[in-house]
């Protein structure tokens, strides 16, 4: 074995630290200059949709000084009230988002509404000159892609970011950098699951609000499990593989929660990529043992990752080569494990640029060790939702590229739409040929 080729535990962790240090991560360690932005440089934004997800974002936005919520909008009064309470900035409230978009002092909007409303709201917001953050999935119907693309091209100075928050996670960013640097070799397979044991319903105080509050259950508004759950993980697969799918086969059904819903309570799907890579996705609503995670498998190793936790496992690899290699073996018992069975925690935290104090370095090492034993749980400096919102506001303020732009959103939306089509038709669905 050539020692220099060997990815030892320490080497790997150093790589992780180096990647973390080298990555331009706007969410890490908010620069002091942003801690007290000038009043003229604060982004005035409005939240369209203050249901569960909207209020989640508002909760994080309330701690970000670079933005000020001046407007919220929802057609369901309890949600509107909840949104105002969550943000705490006394925003103007609206039932009609179009009225909200008329405000000249509004710089940006977040579209966090039922999926069927996304496209029109994005188009209207771009047309009104606003920067736009739209929750995943970016659009609902296939023909909406061109409309959004055209509008985005017509407003190139306005940010358009899709709400795929794993893109803003430091852990995921480091994992992807590791993939790019060859830690797992050639990525050939991604397996992901999102398993819950619940009916996936919101409580409805009056039956007349059923379709409004439980819009996820109805095909008129919703892309079901594909749109709400798989979309996050499909995006990770696209990111890890570095390509978009070319086809999908899928099956699913309403086999457990037969409560009048129109979308599947279980789905199994296989996406295929141009290089033959596969993404296998499983979503069920009757068992949560495996919860959610993504497993990225290459010919040299595996990354298992989810929000808040990432592990690397080195593959037991047989190397075949012609004779002539200069043999140089190192003895000294420094490789106790190759991480083929016991993984190495992905630990993006870094102790600075090599000049960290001894205590800091030792503490970091201790934390990694504890994490490897499952005693210590890695926590990102900021929640990915916070980072996502912070990234968006930074893009608005500074004109920087958004973390999850249109093309990423399109690839994700196509995967959702074609996945559902595969379930509905029982046929393998192919992506349209690109012009």
């Amino acid at each position, binding site marked *: 074995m050539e020692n220099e080729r060997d990815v030892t535990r320490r080497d790997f962790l150093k790589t992780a630290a180096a990647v973390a240090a080298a990555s331009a991560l706007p969410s890490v360690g908010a620069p002091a200059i942003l801690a007290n932005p000038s009043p003229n440089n604060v982004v005035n934004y409005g939240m369209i949709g203050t249901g569960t997800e909207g209020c989640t974002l508002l909760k994080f936005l309330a701690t970000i000084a670079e933005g000020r919520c001046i407007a919220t909008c929802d057609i369901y009064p309890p949600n509107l009230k909840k949104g105002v309470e969550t943000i705490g900035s006394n925003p103007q409230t609206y039932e009609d988002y179009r009225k909200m978009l008329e405000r000249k002092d509004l710089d940006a909007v977040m579209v966090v509404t039922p999926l069927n409303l996304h496209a029109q709201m994005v188009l209207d917001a771009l047309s009104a000159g606003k920067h736009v953050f739209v929750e995943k999935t970016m659009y609902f119907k296939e023909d909406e892609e061109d409309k959004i693309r055209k509008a985005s091209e017509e407003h190139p100075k306005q940010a358009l970011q899709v709400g795929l928050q794993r893109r803003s996670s430091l852990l995921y960013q480091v994992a992807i950098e590791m993939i790019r640097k060859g830690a797992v070799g050639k990525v050939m397979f991604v397996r992901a699951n999102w398993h819950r044991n619940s009916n996936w319903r919101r409580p409805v105080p009056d039956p007349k609000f059923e379709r409004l509050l439980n819009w996820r259950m109805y095909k008129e508004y919703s892309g079901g499990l594909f749109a709400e759950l798989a979309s996050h993980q499909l995006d990770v697969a696209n990111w890890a593989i570095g390509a978009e799918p070319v086809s999908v086969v899928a099956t699913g059904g309403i086999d457990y929660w037969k409560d009048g819903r129109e979308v599947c309570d279980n789905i199994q799907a296989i996406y295929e990529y141009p290089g033959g890579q596969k993404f296998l996705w499983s979503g069920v609503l009757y068992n949560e043992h495996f919860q959610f995670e993504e497993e990225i498998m290459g010919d040299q190793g595996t990354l298992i990752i989810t929000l808040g936790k990432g592990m690397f496992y080195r593959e*037991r690899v047989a190397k075949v080569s*012609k004779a002539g290699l200069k043999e140089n073996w190192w003895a000294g018992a420094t490789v106790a*494990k190759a991480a083929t069975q016991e993984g190495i925690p992905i630990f993006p935290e870094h102790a600075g640029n090599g000049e960290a104090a001894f205590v800091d370095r030792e503490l970091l090492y201790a934390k990694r060790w504890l994490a490897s034993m499952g005693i210590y749980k890695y926590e990102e400096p900021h929640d990915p939702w916070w980072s996502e919102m912070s990234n968006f506001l930074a893009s608005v303020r500074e004109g920087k590229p958004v973390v999850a732009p249109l093309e990423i959103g399109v690839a994700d939306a196509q995967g959702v739409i074609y996945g559902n089509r595969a379930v509905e038709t029982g046929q393998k669905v192919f992506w349209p040929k690109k012009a």
Partner: protein
Amino acid sequence: MNCDLRDGNGRGAQDRPCVRNSRFTIHYSPFTIHHSLFTIILLVTCSRLAGSLVTALAIATAVGGHGAENVVRYEASHESMGTVYTVAVYGRDRTFLSEVVEEVFEEVDRLDEQMSNYKPESELSAINREAASHPVVVEPGLFHLLEISVGRSKETDGAFDITVGPLMKSWGFFRGRGRLPSRAEISQVLKRVGYQHLKLDAERRTIRFDKEGVEIDLGGIAKGYAVDRAVEILRSNGITSALVSSGMSSIYALGSPPGEHGWKITVRAPYDARKAGDVFRLQNYSLSTSGSYEKFLRIGGKNYCHIMDPHTGWPVENMLSTAVLAPTGTDTDGRSAGFFVMGVERSRKYLSVHPNLAVVFYLPSGAPPEYKRVMLRSDSYSIPADSIVEIDR
């Protein structure tokens, strides 16, 4: 300097300085070594020519008389015994090589299943549970290893001892977190430590403990034994060029790589895994290392290494690492920790009566990363005719 550890006539004198050969450049490592403290006891003989002939023969056998261009190198790793076994092997048929290597790993796994003290279902665990109450019949291979181990313990006056397990537990080196046991606790534990408590009956192939609480831990020798078993499998399949490594701590060099004069094996420097302590060229020979850098506790600002002195119950101090060279993995793995415990002077006495061993001691000297090296060799020293053992610093 380039020195050969061979002593063709079987005689040797310790502390004989290595003869410098002007044809070779001395490459000093970037760190400081107290050269004045070197005690190198090597002879340079005419073995280079003999070694080259052996290498040429090995290559010819490996490729079955075909040209070297047909030779394939196959390398695979496998986790077992809490470490990583790696085999690199040369031959003509990739599929055949992979099958042979798989057979090696299956054997290593079998030994792990048998000799692990982490697995309650292993034969060793059963012995540990039952041998204090009645004699336990032992599988022949394991019994042989127990005999070798007890023999080593007697030879080293207990410096190497497979009953050291309870001490390791006291210090938290077994599944636990490190802790500093009290002197009273160590004193209590030591009552259960000592190879004298192991009663082997060769006729009945049984083992019995004469005391409750005695435990066997083969961690100091089983990996070398597994390396030897791996080499047997390789040889029985006609392999003549391979390297077997158990976690980089026990290595056997079978033959030489095609066109090479021995397998180049670099022993890490004690304070820096990326720097070379020594560079060896080995053929049909084994090397094992023990180091304080492998596992250690840091308590109250002081480091305690994982190698225990079975007499005192305390981790060994004033030793950084040892590297042992001998004909088999069982020879080297079962001795590197013993030499580590014995230190230079006791080892010198040991080597005066135990033949065919060479040891390099890496000792503290001033503030890290400085250290000093002491190299010793058996008074009676010879190596097999088909072996190469050279040091190239």
